[in-house]
């Protein structure tokens, strides 16, 4: 993996009102085939994308929230969620769905890591490619 690049997909928008969240997720899943070092960041209204028990029947769009839980199968194992963005919206880690991947010991471990704003800035600075949605 010496020639792989560090990709960060930044998600800033709420899930169903616009197409950004779904488009981002699809690009991540397609891009996962290229075996790069992929992380996802969720901040601002983007944190709503990971809220559990989403129901979209009333607005007539497909609920793609369950697809985040397939990310582990695609070897996407790092989802960073900004703590301040959660707090500003009255959310805590308990409001987020479980997203897991299998570690080297074949145990399911959480892919979600809550980070503060300063740490998020460091994560962004360490990337080769940052794609914002």
């Amino acid at each position: 993996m010496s020639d792989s690049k560090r990709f960060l997909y930044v998600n800033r928008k709420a899930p169903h009102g616009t197409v950004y969240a779904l488009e981002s997720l699809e690009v991540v899943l397609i891009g996962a085939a290229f075996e790069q070092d992929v992380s996802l960041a969720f901040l601002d209204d983007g944190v709503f994308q990971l809220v559990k028990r989403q129901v979209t029947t009333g607005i007539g769009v497909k609920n793609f929230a369950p697809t985040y839980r397939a990310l582990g199968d695609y070897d996407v194992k790092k989802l960073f969620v900004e703590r301040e963005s959660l707090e500003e919206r009255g959310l805590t880690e308990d409001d987020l769905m479980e997203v897991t991947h299998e570690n080297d010991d074949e145990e399911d471990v959480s892919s979600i890591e809550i980070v503060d704003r300063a740490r998020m800035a460091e994560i962004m600075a360490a990337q080769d490619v940052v794609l914002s949605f």
Partner: protein
Amino acid sequence: MTYHFNGMDIASDEEGYLTDLSLWNPDLALLIAKDEKIEMSPEHWEVVNFLREYYDEYQIAPAIRVLTKALKKKLGEEKSSNKYLYELFPYGPAKQACKIAGLPKPTGCV
């Protein structure tokens, strides 16, 4: 494209994937398989049913390497190799099996 089934016209996209997933049933699957020149055996059904369960849980048709990994967990090494799957579905296991399962084209499959 359209499948003619039980006196109904069931719409699909230009590659033969169902437009409305809810119209799928096992008999329609047999018809789609026939179009793909595949005779459905219990082994074919195992893969097709697995894909439908995966879609039900994750709302996504898995890419081939994700399918093989997940199948390995459920059915073991023998029934998850690329060779095994290509013998069942010669024109691409993910593509053909998804089509027969009434699912969209796999995400991450171009």
